[in-house]
């Protein structure tokens, strides 16, 4: 039995060498294949490729209010996004107008977005019941004047879809 055990141990010794070498070679195959294939490089050459640079879908660049082709957004001034925002970056300013049925109705006057305090957490987008918000992919936010970072998201002359109904 002692002999058998010794033989087993010797076999194990050589198996360990074989196992180690093959697993190391497997690792070298991975890095070696990356080395010979330059197209696997993921680094973006940013200032050179800014014309063709395409950001990925989930990238949170800057908040925007979705406008359709008739320049209409779907904000109904429920203020959920402003309340959900942890930094108070959103202010929804409304005005009252006379509706079709004669009752006064709140409609959006200014949707103010403070980019300078936004932390891009994205809580406002799923909070909206009307799916009126989304993040677009523009990330070049640098400006020389801080006041330029306070943006009005509803476009001039836009109207709300909620008003028509």
């Amino acid at each position, binding site marked *: 039995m002692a002999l058998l055990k010794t033989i087993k141990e010797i076999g194990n010794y050589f198996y360990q*060498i074989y196992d180690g070498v093959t697993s*190391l070679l497997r690792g*070298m195959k991975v890095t*070696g294949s*990356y*080395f010979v294939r*330059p197209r696997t*490089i993921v*680094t973006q050459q940013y200032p050179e490729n800014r014309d063709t640079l395409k950001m990925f879908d989930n990238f949170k660049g800057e908040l925007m209010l979705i406008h359709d082709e008739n320049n209409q957004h779907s904000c109904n001034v429920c203020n959920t996004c402003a309340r959900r925002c942890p930094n108070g970056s959103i202010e929804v300013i409304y005005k009252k107008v006379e509706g079709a049925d004669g009752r006064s109705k709140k409609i959006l006057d200014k949707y103010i977005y403070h980019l300078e305090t936004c932390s891009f957490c994205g809580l406002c987008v799923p909070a909206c019941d009307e799916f009126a918000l989304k993040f677009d992919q523009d990330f070049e936010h640098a400006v020389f004047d801080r006041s330029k970072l306070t943006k009005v998201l509803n476009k001039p002359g836009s109207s709300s879809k909620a008003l028509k109904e």
Partner: protein
Amino acid sequence: MYDFTSLIDSITGYLDSTFSPFWAGTISMVLLGVVILLFYAVLGLYLVYAERKICARMQNRMGPNRVGPMGLFQTIADLIKLLLKELILIRNADNFLFNIAPFIVIVASIMAIGAIPFAKGLQAVDLNIGVLYILAISSMGVIGILIAGWASNSKYSVIGAMRSGAQVISYELSVGLALLCIITYAGSMQFSEIIASQEDGWWLFKGHIPAVIAFVVYLIAGTAETNRGPFDLAEAESELTAGFHTEYSGIKFAFFFLAEYMNMFIIAAIATTMFLGGWLPFHLFQWQGFNRVMDFIPPVFWFFGKTAFVIYLMMWFKWTFPRLRIDQLLSLEWKYLLPINLMNLILIAFLTLMEWHF
């Protein structure tokens, strides 16, 4: 063709005929020193650049590409930055030893370069015990590392230096035994004779499988001897910040950095000389045309091409394998490499005795 002996002879002849023997010797030594130092600095910088590029490609990155075309001047800019930086004096450090340590490390690797044959006749000294000399000199570097760790008065440095000492002393054995295999085949320790013995084929090919095993063992042990990854325990960033050179700044840090890369070059150059035929061109059997074409490529290119290949292998190791633990490191040496190496050496001695190699 492409023999540097006549060029060197004409220069020494001119010096001998113009100056007195003392001045001729001094001038030739100064010339040689300047050439070797320039070579050392430029090659060291571009090895750092090559490593950054190769590592980047293996990690799907671009590497340095802003300073100069393809980032070629990046490492030169880095060196200028390091030259301008302040040399911080460490309180309670042993200043004399602290300042002398980087020079010991760098002098050890500069001295080793003197014995490396770059081409026929392009070798500073052709000692009859060249291999022994290089082994002895390159293990001087560890003294510098130990001094650096001790003199820094920092726990990281001491632990790094101790690890480095344990590592270099154990792996020195494997390096020596792997080279001993080729010395047994070639029957000489002189670099020029070892290269001459490979005229009809490199030892890696005509030494059968034992030579291949010796080459692999040499590569592993050589990587460990230069303190490079996966054997970079001496400067393991995650545990010891930077190991033995934690407290060094500016150009003294650059000396350690440069010495590490030049030690890698020296290890690769010895591997080239011993296993891959040094500056000899690649010859295939009796294909006269092919061999003639290969002969036209200058030996310097052959030498640097083969060395670059070995360096590339070592960089490939570094950027693929995870770092070993200290007990794994020592068990790899004492339980695997050393027994394999000893058996290999006996096998090679037998093969040489029976003259079974080509």
